[in-house]
């Protein structure tokens, strides 16, 4: 935290900082604008999405897509299913991986000795 704090104060006056900020912002826009545009598409009426773009598109924003999503589908059920799978996977992985990762010191050093001989990583 203190290192970051010191870094920030020092950065602002540094040469190249303006370049870093400009380059970073431009690059961030390349990554964020398409995603933001997709969010905007989701609040456009579907008829407009498949039409030629015009400036008037933005004056017809609607939440109909979202309310339709909840009414016409079992989307909440699907989301709950995904959540169940995610939580289950996380818990099971945490338990099994922790158990597999925490050997006794003897097995740990044995594993390391084996690894230093035959693994690609040191």
């Amino acid at each position, binding site marked *: 935290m203190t*290192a*970051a704090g010191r*870094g*920030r104060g020092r*950065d*602002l006056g540094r040469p190249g*900082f303006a370049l*870093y*900020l400009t*380059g*970073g912002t431009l*690059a*961030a826009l*390349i*990554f*964020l604008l*398409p*995603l933001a*545009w*997709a969010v905007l*598409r989701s609040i456009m009426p579907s008829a407009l*999405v*498949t*039409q*030629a*773009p015009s400036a008037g598109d933005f004056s017809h924003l609607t939440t109909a897509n979202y309310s339709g999503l909840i009414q016409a589908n079992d989307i909440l059920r699907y989301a709950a299913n995904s959540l169940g799978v995610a939580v289950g996977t996380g818990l099971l992985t945490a*338990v*099994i*991986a922790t*158990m*597999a990762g*925490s*050997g006794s010191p003897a*097995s740990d050093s044995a594993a390391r000795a084996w690894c230093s001989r035959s693994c*690609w*990583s*040191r």
Partner: protein
Amino acid sequence: MLLVTPAVAMVALFVLFPLGFAVYISLTNWPLIGPYHFIGGQNYSLLVHDPQFIHSVLFTLLYTAIVTGPIFLVGYAMAVLVRSGRFGSVFFRTAFFLPFIVGLATESFMALLELQPDSGAADYVLSKIGLAHAGTAWTVDYGLALTAICVFVTWFASGLTMMLLMAGMQGIPSELYEAAEVDGASWWQKEWRITLPLLRRNIALALIISVIGSFLAFNQFYILTEGGPGTSTQPVVMWIYQEAFVQYHLGYATAGAVALVVVIGIISAAQFYLLRDDNGRRARR
């Protein structure tokens, strides 16, 4: 030892057994339903003479050859940009990594919508700045579709390379750079003489993950081109999918899948070997 048992059991049950079973299926004429019999290596000898399979392999190789470089270079440049804890670097990291979080399938549908001639935003913007004609049908032309998908995948995947390289860069002791600065090293010299050599293992990991990802490419092609026009943009995994679940040749498709596993294994081993840490070993001696 007892504690490792559940993990070993899981790996055996969900990795080793299915893999062995897949090899067995590939030696039969397995249909989706009904009886099957053992036919030995017949699927494999058919495979190497199947023009459709060979085309999909060559196309996957071409695709991998095109995207690996840009993903690595863009990822490396972004890692350089965000590796120090400068003001805004956390925001930039998040922004660059966000496409990877949102997911390839979702974004493929976004891309499909925006690449539509006359109504898509990409088509509109590119024609306004003069990079393409208005009403370009991006997804039904081999060259255009391949170009669009390569740009799209670079946009999607370079964030992961950035994360992997950034973690490695932050692990390099700052004393090395300070010593180099005292000796009057330029930015390029520090990057070339310190960062790159010490980053070999991270570079190897980033490249292997990227190449494996390209070999297993499916979503973007399935959603954007459906392999078309014809089967010209059909990667190997889509060939496997078509053969298994459209043609119901499960044994034959599995032979293709086993061949893909072997090829990926060989290429990964070659990359590990080429990018092995021999510099460090020599220094330690």
